[in-house]
């Protein structure tokens, strides 16, 4: 049934000041609960330690991001999400914790290039000089909510709600229009 699955904006891409690619189907799991209670089961299921405030920890295809004092986001291959949700729910049974598969609620774009901070600065009220690789910011891009993940130098990932994927792509492409480099970041 794999042909029945479609990400929000399949294969959307733009090349201008930066390179923009829709990331395709991505697995995402929202976890809510006391970090102390979540840590053990998470380590057992994923091998990942708890991320510090506004940080991402990763291992292989898995990434665990801090979202709020009682919320985490686990990113993993899309097909593995249902099994992982079930496993975590079992491991956390009896605890005050919530596990939800939100893989399909989101759209994801990969952004890369030396000017990526300058492009994002046009849309997000974020100080990119203080955003290091491995950091995450929950913010907004123009009028919609966005999570911004700094993966490696010059490589970012932005996550938004699925319904506004088109808006987000158009925003990013507009901000990355050739000739519009604000030269704010080095």
């Amino acid at each position, binding site marked *: 049934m794999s042909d029945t699955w479609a990400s929000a904006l399949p294969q959307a891409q733009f090349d201008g000041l930066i390179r923009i690619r829709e990331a395709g189907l991505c697995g995402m799991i929202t976890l809510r609960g006391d970090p102390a209670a979540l840590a053990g089961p998470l380590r057992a299921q994923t091998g990942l330690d708890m991320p510090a405030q506004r940080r991402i920890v990763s291992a292989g295809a898995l990434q665990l991001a801090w979202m709020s004092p009682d919320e985490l986001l686990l990113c993993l291959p899309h097909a593995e999400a249902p099994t992982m949700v079930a496993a975590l729910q079992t491991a956390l049974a009896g605890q005050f*914790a919530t596990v939800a598969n939100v893989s399909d609620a989101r759209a994801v774009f990969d952004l890369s290039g030396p000017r990526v901070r300058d492009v994002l*600065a046009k849309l997000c009220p974020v100080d990119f000089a203080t955003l290091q690789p491995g950091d995450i910011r929950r913010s907004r891009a123009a009028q919609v909510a966005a999570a911004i993940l700094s993966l490696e130098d010059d490589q970012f990932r932005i996550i938004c709600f699925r319904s506004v994927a088109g808006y987000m792509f158009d925003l990013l492409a507009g901000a990355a229009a050739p000739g519009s480099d604000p030269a704010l970041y080095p």
Partner: protein
Amino acid sequence: MSHRLASGGRLIDRRQPVNFSFNGRQMSGFAGDTLAAGLLGAGQTLLGRSFKYHRPRGVVASGAEEPNALLGLGQGDRFEPNQRATTTELFEGLAATSQNHWPRLEFDLLALNNLVPQFLTAGFYYKTFLWPRAFWKHVYEPVIRRSAGLGEAPGPRTRDPDRYEQIYAFADVMVIGGGIAGLQAALAAAESGARVALWEQSAHWGGRAPVDGIEIDGTPAEDWITATLARLAAMENVQLRLRTMGAGVHDHGYVLGYERVSDHAPGDDAPRHRLWRMRAGRIITATGAIERPLSFAGNDVPGVMLASAMRDYLVNYAVAPGQEVVIVTNNDDAYRTALALRRAGIGVAAVVDARADPAGPLPQAARAAGIRILAGSGIRKVKGGRHVKGVEVCAIDSRGVAHTAQLDCDAVGMSGGWSPVVHLWSHCGGKLIWDEGGHFFRPDPARPPLGQDGAGFVLACGSANGDLGPVLGDAQATGCRAAQAMGADGAASDAGRDTPAEMAEMEPVWIMPRAAEYDLRAKMWLDFQNDVKVSDIQLAAREGFHSVEHAKRYTTLGMATDQGKLSNINGLAILSDALGQPIPATGTTTFRPPYTPISLAAIAGEARGPLFQPLRRTPMQDWHDAHGADWEPVGQWRRPFAYLRKGEGRTAAVNREVRNVRTGVGMLDASTLGKILVSGPDAARFMDMLYTGMMSSLKPGRCRYGLMCNENGFLMDDGVVARLDEGRFLVHTTSGGADHIHGWMEDWLQCEWWDWQVHTVNMTEQFAQVAVAGPKARHLLERLGGMDLSREAMPFMSFAEGALGGFDARVFRISFSGELGFEIAVPASQGRALWARLMAEGADLDVMPYGTEALHILRAEKGFIMIGDETDGTVIPQDLGLNWAISKKKTDFLGKRGMERVAMQDPDRWTLVGLETLHGTVLPHGALALAPGHNANGQRQTQGRVTSSYYSANLGCGIAMGLVANGPDRMGEVLDFAGPKDRIIQARIVDPVRIDKDGERQNV
């Protein structure tokens, strides 16, 4: 006449001529010119007509403070009115046009206004528009619209083709103004280790120091500027930006900057303007000072300019204001202009100085250069209409009845002293003090705008701080102080040593001559752009407008697009004089952002066209679009109103869809419905508080309809709740309500019930949801296979999870149409495939998609309420006959106490009924039911209103729901409804449930 000199001009490049046009006439300037410099260099001194009197006007200033030289720039889609010639950089092909005249600039019939100035005095609107009433619309307005104003708005069909953007930036220390004080402050802050941003509104660094001949460390200022810039540019913690104006200072160190990215280089693919949204720890205003005009008769005639502006044109652009110039002043600074003109070989007829004995170093230098000085004198009047022909001089303290000398000249340079630019200091509440020596308002360091830490977050330095002498020492200290406040305390290098010429004391002159007669005062302009004169302010004072804010609005002083940059202090002084009080007692008007006008497009940024606001799309949106969807907005979603087949109208499509659901099977994209997961040990308790009904008793696997009210008891949202298991509920909200309800839940959980163990997760977008409704619904779904959807396995108001046709589905047995209905939720990524599969499987069942209008009609046939139609924020569930959905067992729920208030218990509240017109027609939406008598305002009394009204194709007549006083007790009664054009439409009160009252159809 103004003209270009054969040599000189520090900012122009004579090897690069630039062609431009003014009112269609071809002219030529040089790269580096402003438009004003280009025009003056080409001998064009007459640039426009004034706002009310259509007086000829020319350039007064050389920068952002310019009130007169406003031109229309560009053509067609790129036309823009009211652009300042003094801040517009010249580029090849620039096309400028003058404004506010008819038929021509040189010959303006509307200048007749000038002959009857008493008609247009202060407050003329209020005085003129009293009577006769019929004249308001047909005489006064058309005449005034025709004659008063500046540039014309662009045509309604034009569309700006340029791009605009915004950007967020951060700094420890934001320095606004790139003159020598700003450069020094930025250097000190940066060397201290702070992260620094420095903005300069013009295209050049250094401000006016080079023009004024300032020396720094013993060499011309220019050298120091170049060296300092190089040091700043080499530092990683410094952002330098030209052509960027600090437009406004707001709370918490938020600064708006307006960057004119490519105004000077159109045709680039760069954006035109960029709006900077800067968050800074400390803000240093190094915004300089602005010279004040003097108020003498005819001070607005083209050729009369600020003395400093003359110097700017001369030194920066090698443009002379005329052949023979008179300087009029009350201070030493203007002598710099006289000396500069003399050095350039321009005739200086005389310096007219109000002071009895000008003896400072600069007047002495002028005397030594052979320049005639008329001390103790003022200008009685300027001669000439479209350009200066000469001046009459009189004793400064006289009434100006007779002149003491006449001077021939073609330009007049005036200087009434300087005013620090205190705008940015004041935007966020910084207070001012009156400087007795300099006769200006300056920032009061004891009362700066305060930040969240209680400390001042704006610091002024240089002439913006009222320091008209040396500035670099203070600027360096200010830069260090700002950096230290941000925790940067590295060592800064020593300040440069600037040595401006020494200035003798100035002597305030607010009216020239001081005892001038009325006819002279009526020709002394204060606000050039809005045509406000000395006599207008004096009249306002006599008429009782004593508050400076009242006088401003009554006379329009300072209300033009230049915001009174030249007129403010002069106007205050005249008002104070008229009221017999010192200037500080009068105070200033309020300084508001932006400092100079910024483009609306920059404020809009990317939010235009398709990006005006986010458009939310369901996974099936493309399918709908390809199948005739006629869209309607629902929040930020767009949902199909109906699916139009080829050649089919809206009404026909809706009727077809409505009939099909009752007879066959229809499909609705319900993905937009809010879906919020509520989980945790206290979830059931929380649900009982959110909903009016009992939710804790709901069994896992079952669904229940519920109502949510706000604290006042007003109905806020409704929907079906599914209990997934003991500790987890899935809350369905209305399409528009999902985000609000999620926020509402979090508000209660985080602020009030923080110790309850409940989590919420907004799952709205995780699922695509399809409603399948109609007698053949089960038949269609069974074709997909994989789940038992029989009545026994899945009774009404239950749900089940499984693999439906291979899809990971949660199937709800619920109905909003009254028909046999299912809603199928699958991961959003599979929504498009599920929809296509259902359409394909149901082809021979004539399955059809239906839109929101059919949805509405189907629910109205069943008497189901719709949030937003039957509710408007003032309706409680009891008004809608929904008492059955309010638990009587629960001790509390949100809205319970609100419902117990007297007004909510009133037996005469308007209550839900069905309405049926006597002739089967459709009642107008929102129509009021009339009652006998009239209220105190003479309006007809009412007793109800229509909340929903449709044509029902299934019943073949109009159906409506409405709220009527005591409605349910009045079944069968006929009411009069007010239709359009006073038409009365009669309708009978009926049961709102029109089809299948017992609910058999949904239960099969």
